[in-house]
């Protein structure tokens, strides 16, 4: 459903972020189109919380989001990545040293 007039006001898109359990990060759940924060809350409650799947929601007008979408990616940046560098063995050794107590 696109923005337009509804319920007597101009609609806007509200992005909905959902927290599944206290202390967990909020994750993007979807969006609602609503004429104001109160309708956005009422609709988001029913759409993203009716099965007890959320303990909290954040509602953010899409216009309030400062989006970052452009990157200078002409150079090969792969050398900065650590894929393939396994720390598993080193970590195991470090844990064993730690368990053995101070030298």
């Amino acid at each position, binding site marked *: *459903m696109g923005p337009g007039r*509804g*319920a*007597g*006001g101009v609609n806007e898109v509200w992005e909905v972020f959902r927290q599944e359990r206290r202390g967990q990060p909020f994750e993007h759940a979807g969006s*609602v*189109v*609503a*004429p104001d924060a*109160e*309708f956005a809350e*009422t*609709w988001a*409650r*029913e*759409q993203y919380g*009716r099965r007890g799947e959320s303990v909290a929601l954040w509602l953010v007008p899409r216009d309030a989001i400062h989006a970052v979408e452009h990157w200078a990616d002409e150079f090969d940046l792969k050398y900065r990545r650590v894929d393939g560098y396994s720390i598993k063995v080193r970590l195991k050794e470090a844990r064993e040293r730690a368990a053995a107590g101070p030298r």
Partner: protein
Amino acid sequence: MNELLLGLADDELVIGWRDSEWTGIAPMLEEDVAFSSIAQNEIGHARAVYELLADDADALAFDRPLDEYRCAPLVELRLLDWAHTIARRWLYEEADRIRIEALMEDADPAVAGLAAKIDREEAYHRMHAELWHERLRDEPRFRDAVADLWPYALGVLPPDQREQLAARVSLEIPSNNVLLGKERGSHTDELAELWNEMTTVRRSAPAGAQW
């Protein structure tokens, strides 16, 4: 059988059915989801109250003949426009609140506890209804719908609770002959059609449908 509780449960069951008739065709997608969810909540409240009254909620909900239902005519009406549907939702929540608040003081702790639990969920239904009411109250179509349904809304409550409702919604109580046929105890013709649909599955499998 507690007639007051049976009336409450039947109201919640029937308005749940009526409101869920909007699933898929409500004026906005978001409202469609919300309205359907609220309708399901109402049916959930009906189930909880039936369980307080009998061992088998389904039997109580679906196995009674039509004339044993205690729902108020307000919830029976098949409303085909959004203005009337939202006007009923708002008036119903205002009336429901008055009887639920009274039940929260009930001497039976099981009744008082369930009323409090229902009230905690109804708070969100009231928030939803109030938002629509605030937006639409000056719209002529909504005002006409409220005027049409107001006598039926009074019929949800016993006479001693009606003044309280009138004060809450700032409307005048009309004369008794206007209320005739619109109070609990009467049924509309539309209930028969709904009962027929509502009990189809149950009647087709008298031993109990397995899902």
